[in-house]
């Protein structure tokens, strides 16, 4: 992510989106990244890591797990791929957060947060961070904690979208 400049979009650019609508006072969020033109092999490899991390994070969301467990599940994927440095505070902030009346609410999904998840909590799980080979990548879904795990409420397919340049 970077400030707006005069630079024109070019093939291979990543377009990151955190879209956070508010309806009747309540926020949900979706994070997706798309590529202008055909994704490179490096972009596809990077995407696979973020998708694996998001899947692991969502699988960790259940009553009794802590916010830290969800963050750790995502970060372990990055560590396994040799990207552990990029899940530290030097490159990223949180691995997701609560949603509701506030856009960035409790709990913060960080490894040292021991708040227990309970049914009907609402969160965004997003392993968003910088990737040394391709740049900043966002990927995340809104979830609701339910009695036996979690329900993913955003439905946009998880894939590295590719759109042609005009």
């Amino acid at each position, binding site marked *: 992510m970077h400030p707006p400049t005069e630079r024109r979009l070019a093939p291979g650019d990543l*377009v990151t*989106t955190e*879209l*956070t*609508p*508010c*309806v*009747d*006072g*309540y*926020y*949900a*969020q*979706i994070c*997706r990244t*798309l590529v*202008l033109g055909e994704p490179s092999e490096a972009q596809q490899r990077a995407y696979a890591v973020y998708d694996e991390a998001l899947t692991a994070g969502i699988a960790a969301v259940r009553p009794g797990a802590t916010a830290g467990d969800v963050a750790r599940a995502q970060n372990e994927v990055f560590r396994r791929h040799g990207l552990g440095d990029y899940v530290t505070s030097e490159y990223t902030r949180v691995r997701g957060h*609560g*949603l*509701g*009346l*506030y856009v960035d*609410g*409790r*709990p913060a999904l960080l490894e040292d947060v021991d708040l227990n998840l*309970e*049914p*009907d*909590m*609402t969160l965004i799980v997003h392993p968003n961070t910088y990737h040394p080979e391709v740049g900043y990548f966002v990927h995340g879904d*809104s979830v*609701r904690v339910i009695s036996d795990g979690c329900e993913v*409420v*955003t*439905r*946009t397919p998880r894939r590295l*979208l590719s*759109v*042609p*340049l*005009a």
Partner: protein
Amino acid sequence: MSGIASARAERRTRLAIAMAEEGIDVLVVAGNPWRSDYLRFAADITPVEGHAFAFIGREAPARIIVESPAEAARLRSEQAELDVRWSLSAIEETETAIRELAKQRIAIAPLAAVPYRLAMGRLVASIGPATALLDRLMLRKSPSEIAAFRRAAVLADEGYAVFAKPRASGGRNMRSSRKSRLSSVPAAVRKIFRSWAPAAVKCAGCIRRRNGASRPATW
């Protein structure tokens, strides 16, 4: 009942039950434009200028203290049943109002928005904490809150689909959709915007005069 009204009623009921369980007679909730979610939960108000304080009893409608007449007018127009007052020294007025409730059990929240004078001042020994109580209620959503969250998620999906399309066609569609969003602001909201203008001018005059005023509070 609309989604907003239904969620508001559920929040109010849950809060009253929690206050009774904790033995709280009056809950004072602070907020400001940067941190308004606790105020929205407790009283369904969102300050856009200055401090705002809500006095929540278990039964009666909330009493609100804000810092400007424009804020007061806006909140009254949003919820006619609210008792809204304004004062240029809203923190001091809130302290006075808390003192007048001396025999009742008072709690205040959230720590992230309570001004120093109220959080650490003379009344601190007589006010209980309520941030954890509100956090508990706000973390676990009610059915109406979940329904609103779902509607927002649907909008996120639809919005991303719209976002992804114009990238392929040079962005013209993106500009069109933005224009159409602006023109779809409801007439009622535009009317409120227009109604703020005179109050805002008056408020600016009050603020210009405040340096010379010995006690600028206006109830």
